[in-house]
């Protein structure tokens, strides 16, 4: 049976005891295991991508190749349109991120500050919608894309990606708006700003950190998305990175190009590795704000 937490009045007047520390060795070992666990698959792809073909297919595996090559990377960009793939992924990701922030931020403000009938219901639905697996949307969106002739059109990806990221954007930005002091808005209104002007000129600069956070999350999602990219972008020069990489594996009939495959994996993940390295804290903030606070 758990005892109820002690009320502040009963809290001990003594200084708090030092936190218990588990044996340093066990702790360090656990951290080391965690780091290895997270990095190992990525590092293995990196190592494989610079091995010569003969070394790749050597058993037992070579973990520290004595000879290296960049030929696999060269093949990606020379024999396959990898620049196109990178551009496609980047363009779609940036466009959907921009659109999502543009549409989601005013909506978030509205839900944070303005009286709206059925606000709880709207928020509840927005939250529930984040649980939908994309396969549920697949058939309907396929029909829409065909109806509007959007096959192999960037819009076929940009619009769904924007919509899929709206819930998280709205929830995160809303909680951010709620934390801003109301005096700011009241003062702005007394100075004669319209709500739109106030949002744009006064509040937006303040919300920049939150915008960056949600922007990064949207970018990550859009770059990584697979199902819709696979379905709607079938033309080789329009494919996104995940689709192109996955389809590299079935390229040759007689031999699987392990080297270029590994190189493709590395190239396809570098932008995200960079993002994570520079924006780790923001990413974590965004994830927890969106998911925990709901």
């Amino acid at each position, binding site marked *: 049976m758990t005892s109820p937490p002690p009320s502040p009045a009963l809290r001990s007047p003594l200084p708090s005891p030092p*936190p218990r520390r588990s044996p340093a060795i066990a702790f360090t070992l656990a951290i080391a295991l*965690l780091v290895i666990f997270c990095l190992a698959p990525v590092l293995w792809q990196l190592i494989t991508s610079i091995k010569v073909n003969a070394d790749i297919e050597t058993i037992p595996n070579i973990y520290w190749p004595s000879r290296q090559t960049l030929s696999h990377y060269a093949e990606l960009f020379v024999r396959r349109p990898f620049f196109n793939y990178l551009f496609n992924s980047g363009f779609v990701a940036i466009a959907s991120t921009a659109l999502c922030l543009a549409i989601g931020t005013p909506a978030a403000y509205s839900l944070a500050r303005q009286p709206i009938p059925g606000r709880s219901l709207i928020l509840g639905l927005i939250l529930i919608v984040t649980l939908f*697996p994309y*396969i549920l949307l697949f058939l309907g969106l396929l029909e829409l894309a065909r109806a509007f002739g959007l096959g192999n059109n960037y819009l076929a990806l940009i619009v769904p990606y924007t919509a899929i990221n709206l819930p998280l954007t709205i929830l995160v930005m809303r909680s951010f708006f709620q934390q801003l002091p109301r005096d700011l808005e009241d003062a702005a209104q007394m100075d004669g700003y319209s709500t739109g002007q106030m949002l744009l000129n006064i509040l937006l600069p303040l919300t920049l950190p939150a915008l960056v956070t949600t922007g990064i999350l949207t970018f990550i999602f859009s770059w990584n998305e697979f*199902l819709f990219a696979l379905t709607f972008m079938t033309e080789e020069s329009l494919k996104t990175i995940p689709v192109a990489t996955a389809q590299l594996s079935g390229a040759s009939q007689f031999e699987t190009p392990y080297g270029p495959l590994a190189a493709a994996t590395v190239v396809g993940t570098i932008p995200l590795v960079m993002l*994570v390295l520079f924006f780790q804290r923001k990413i974590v903030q965004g*994830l927890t704000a969106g998911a925990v606070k709901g």
Partner: protein
Amino acid sequence: MPPSPSRSRTWPTVFLFLAPAIALLLLIYGYPIARSLGLSLMTQNLGTQLEPQFSGLGNYGRMVGDGRFWHTLGNTAVFTIAAVTIELVLGLAIALLLHRKFWGRGLVRTIAILPWALPTAVMAVGWAWIFNDQYGVVNDLLQRLHLISGPINWLGDPALAMVSLIVADVWKTTPFVSVLLLAGLQSIPDDLYEAHAIDGATPWQSFWAITLPLLMPQLAIAVLFRFAQSFGVFDLVQVMTGGGPAGSTETVSLYIYATVMRYLDFGYGAALTVVTFLLLVATVAIAIALLGRRGLRQL
């Protein structure tokens, strides 16, 4: 609370601010679900020259006797339950690990986020390579450790292919879970632990008495999100095993995809979509009911 002075000019602004988002959400989320519902009552496939013909509950009747559907449902259930359970336990352990100050904690957290941030489809290619029967690292390491005598055909064996998938999924999403739980851990006041310790409790006892109960909302959210995501898993399975060998790792989402794209059986695909949707809704509803009112309030 005094009424906001902007109330009189609120309505046009509300419409302008909120409408685009709501409209887009309705279009991308609402329309497909509604359309699938309607289409599921039709037969529209190669047999009908791709023209829709009303068939009532025919598709649903067909589903009852469709062995492949039940098989994929079973695969999905196995995958989901195994993956989510492991990720929860592992995620909690990692969160507890990261919940103390140590040198390099920021860097470790960065590294922990990496698996989640990388494209599933791209890493699936990598995992297929890792589990490759001839040149894969897993076989190599196991053999070097003398745990197996010869290479195992991971992706060619029905049970082992599922294991490989689960390993890849655990790798990718455990960080996500641990980040959620870490936030929850950080919101538990230290005084509770101190008081408990003063009463003579061990950290192990504190974990069960304080940590776990107070972490319940975050745990519930993590389970909910992970369950929904696992249930609809597509990228990982499609790229890593393609549903093979011989459909032994085919999940519901793969079946829907194949039904629509390969067999051009739109009516049936819609019915499968609807049933998947209902199953998900039912499970979420049960979970929320179990969560109870107190948990919901904390959500």
